[in-house]
């Protein structure tokens, strides 16, 4: 009994570490931007190149900034979730067309529907770098003061929206 106790304990600890390691997603890198002011930008709008969109305009509102692209398959997966969320009227979702072709982005939105009141165009991906985007889709929840409160890496799903996004948005709106 005593002879096997120590090796078994060590084995148990290792299994524990590996089990936890298996449940972690290496793609989800915690963002240092959560809790910090959303980086400023001023970018042309997709539907009206002469107009610009800037987070400055959103002060006083809780809003979502969703980085997407017509070439991104995860964005297609996420799209119905965004449509539902936009329809529910809980929060407005602003789009950021990330490193995309303008006409392809417009066709994509026409074909699948447009959940965004405004889409800004980040053709070179510079604003994406300021926001620490490393793979679309990524979604930021930004509060009334313009501070990032949450970052979703990868597609949003119904469960995340219901359990995380909506409660957080309600809490931030009440402030």
């Amino acid at each position, binding site marked *: 009994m005593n002879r096997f106790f120590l090796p078994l304990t060590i084995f148990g600890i290792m299994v524990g570490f590996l089990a936890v390691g298996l449940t972690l997603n290496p793609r989800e*890198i915690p963002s240092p931007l959560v809790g910090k002011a959303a980086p400023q930008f001023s970018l042309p709008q997709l539907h009206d190149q002469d107009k610009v969109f800037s987070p400055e305009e959103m002060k006083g509102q809780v809003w979502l900034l969703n980085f997407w692209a017509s070439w991104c398959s995860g964005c297609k997966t996420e799209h119905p979730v965004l449509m539902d969320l936009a329809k529910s009227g809980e929060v407005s979702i602003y789009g950021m067309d990330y490193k995309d072709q303008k006409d392809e982005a417009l066709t994509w939105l026409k074909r699948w529907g447009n959940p965004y009141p405004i889409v800004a165009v980040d053709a070179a*991906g510079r604003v994406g770098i300021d926001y620490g985007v490393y793979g679309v889709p990524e979604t930021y929840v930004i509060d009334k003061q313009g501070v990032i409160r949450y970052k979703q890496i990868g597609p949003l799903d119904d469960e995340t929206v219901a359990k995380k996004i909506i409660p957080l948005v309600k809490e931030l709106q009440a402030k």
Partner: protein
Amino acid sequence: MRWLTLIVLLMPGLSLAGEARPLADDPVAEARLKHLAVELRCLVCQNQTLADSNAPLAEDLRREVRDMIARNMSDQEIIDFLVSRYGDFVLYRPPLKATTSLLWLGPFVLVVAGGVALVTALRRRSQKVAAVTMTEEEHRRVEQLLSQGVKRS
């Protein structure tokens, strides 16, 4: 014949490889970029450095770093710029912090624990072997037995 076609088709020489683009006109800036890029992780393909990766994001980040070099920013400023956006994860050498202490100290803890385990095991074993004094007669008998053993095998 079919095999021959297959082999010809699979010959690497037939595939066209694009020439690597020259990175910049300034060799000093390029050397700095190289020096920095091997220290930085590409976030898309996480086991590659920024220098190795061909992911679009890595290209963009190299472009940003190149711009920052052109603007005469120091290495530390450039690294801070990336860390403030992507976190410590972009660094291949994580800084020593409370959250990374296990990572940094863990190997030493393991070495010390292994050393202690080894020393105690060896001590315990040496205690088991009791020192025995033998007479001349016993010595002869041992030698005899040993030589018999050799013969038998």
